[in-house]
């Protein structure tokens, strides 16, 4: 939030002149028929993507030369807002004259860039980026129909954010390398989730297979597990893990071990004992709550000499910031 966010603008004001012109007068709107295909000596491909019920649907017509795989002519129809019409039109323009393999490489970002007035000013506001994604998807659909293969075969990796074309592997890598803890940080680092926001969490503009919130949670869990495994490996190989870096369970085990090996026997010799009630992180301190049993409870030394002995042993063996609190 800042000054520029306080008075909302109209998204229409952010459309480039090219987008506006194409909304008003699309160049490639219409249909192609079998007769057109025959006339041009090519194969007619009709691909549909999206659905009216989702608010966006586009149909792409190609006539492809079967010998050269070249797209001889292309047209579109679209149910969608003005930017969907402009994006579809631009996509068709970019397809024409290319081979099918070349056309599949056209991304939504290419479509958006082609509609810019100035090279550095986006053609549409962030929340409209997804309109160009539809244009990109329908190309893959058309190519899959032409080649008789699955659409997925054109996608080399899993794309989480279609608008910014950020893959699952990139997002996981960035979270791990930079120790990211929030979705906002992921967006800052990768641009994923910066546009239509559908990929952030369920309930957005469109349903997604992967959401940033889930990826973050899953990746943090993996990081946690990796850390645990690393520590366990260290311990198994006899390497010392500093008390500070231990998990709570490891801390309790370590405290228990020190007490068993160094303290408990002396208490038992005097007819007493102790138990650990709780271990709590308290800022830089680790507080160990204990209870005396048998002869120890009520013994005058239990709050002075004995307590001092327990605490100093733990401090010496484990960490100087341990405090022992008898209850």
């Amino acid at each position, binding site marked *: 939030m800042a000054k520029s966010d306080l008075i909302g603008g109209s998204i229409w004001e952010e459309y480039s002149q090219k987008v506006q012109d194409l909304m008003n007068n699309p160049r490639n709107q219409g249909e192609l028929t079998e007769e057109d295909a025959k006339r041009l000596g090519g194969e007619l491909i009709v691909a549909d993507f999206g659905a009216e019920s989702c608010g966006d649907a586009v149909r792409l017509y190609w006539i492809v030369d079967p010998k050269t795989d070249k797209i001889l002519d292309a047209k579109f129809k679209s149910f969608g*807002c003005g930017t969907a019409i402009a994006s579809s039109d631009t996509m068709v323009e970019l397809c024409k004259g290319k081979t099918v393999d070349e056309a599949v490489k056209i991304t939504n970002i290419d479509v958006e860039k082609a509609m810019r007035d100035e090279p550095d000013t986006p053609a549409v506001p962030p929340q409209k980026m997804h309109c160009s994604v539809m244009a990109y998807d329908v190309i893959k659909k058309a190519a899959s129909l032409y080649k008789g293969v699955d659409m997925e075969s054109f996608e080399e990796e899993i794309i989480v954010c279609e608008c910014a074309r950020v893959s699952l592997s990139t997002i996981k890598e960035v979270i791990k390398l930079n120790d990211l803890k929030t979705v906002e940080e992921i967006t800052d680092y990768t641009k994923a989730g910066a546009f239509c926001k559908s990929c952030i969490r369920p309930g957005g503009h469109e349903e997604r297979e992967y959401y940033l919130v889930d990826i973050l949670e899953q990746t943090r869990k993996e990081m946690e597990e990796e850390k645990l495994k690393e520590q366990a490996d260290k311990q198994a190989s006899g390497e010392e893990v500093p008390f500070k870096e231990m998990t709570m369970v490891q801390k309790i085990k370590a405290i228990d071990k020190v007490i068993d090996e160094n303290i408990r026997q002396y208490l038992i010799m005097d007819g007493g004992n102790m138990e650990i009630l709780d271990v709590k992180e308290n800022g830089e301190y680790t507080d160990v709550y204990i209870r005396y049993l048998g002869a120890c409870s009520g013994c005058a030394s239990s709050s002075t000499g004995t307590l001092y002995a327990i605490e100093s042993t733990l401090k010496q063996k484990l960490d100087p910031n341990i405090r022992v609190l008898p209850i």
Partner: protein
Amino acid sequence: MMKVYLDNNATTMVDPEVKAAMDPYVCEIYGNPNSLHDFGTATHPALRKAMDQMYEALGARDEDDIVVTSCATESNNWVLKSVWLDLIQNGEKDHIITTEVEHPSVTAVCRWLESRGVRVTYLPVNADGIVEAHTVRDFITDKTALVSVMWANNETGAVFPIEQIAEVCKEKGVLLHTDGVQAVGKIPVNVTKAGVDFMSFSAHKFHGPKGVGGLYIRGGRSLTSLLHGGEQMGGRRSGTLNVPGIVGMGKAMELANYYLRFEEQHVRRLRDKLEDAILQIPDTYSVGPRDNRTPNTVLVSVRGVEGEAMLWDLNRAGIAASTGSACASEDLEANPIMIAVGADNELAHTAVRLSLSRFTTEAEIDYTIDVFKKAVERLRAISSTYAYTPKKEGA
């Protein structure tokens, strides 16, 4: 190019008579009404008159309070949050009933209250776009603190049976709040006859100025203040009085009441003419029965044409309308009203709202009909989901 404003449910033009009434209270009579000196007291006659105009127009009794606020969003927030403070936080009650089609200034507060542990029931509307009184009755429990149901819907204009809902609430001993924003100035509104406990309204929806609204509070109803300070408005809402705003709202309400019959006849006739003409186009629909709508509103659906694309074409021709299904919105899958009234999925993104006012002319409606038809023709020719062959030139 003709300019036609058909988005009067969003906001309205200030009536020139209202502006004239407000004018002296900007540069000439600008004192603080709370001051002792003449500059301050000079504002009092106009303020008293404005209050009289509002009490008269809304049918409020002298023992009731009409508290001036900054807008209906404030009024809605006030009722919901203070009922929570007064009746729910002390454990006496735990439940609020509202509808699925309220304005965000009710719905968003309810969502926030849910995050604080309040149970909220969102009642669905029927195919006519309203909630019936018996449905409200079915959901009231001993723990229900408040029922909040709008008087008229902003998108469809559907008028809710507030009097019957008030009877149910009275019988069950539950407070009733109504968001009257889309009703005041468009249909007769009498708070005493209706029997509501609280009603929100906003001046800019009935040709008054922006930044001023109100909350009617039935006599004897307590409601913790949200704005503490200088004890204005009888201590119910502090803050220096918006003198020109209050004067303007009073005048606007008086005029709106005066023009109600005109609204009912002239505005309704123009709305019906527009609606009839649109429904002549194949595969178009309007939401909710006409006789149970505010006279100025129609929500139409054009199969095969996305709502925002339609707005774009209308705007190019100088016509302002609105859609609840903006495809840029982050959280709207589709227009919730369209889903609520059970329209098929394909129509959910096609809704366009046209809302008239008493300033709308016959020539403007004729022009709009012409533009609308052309826009449908152009966009259906582009549409991938509507099989439509445009007429060839000269064919």
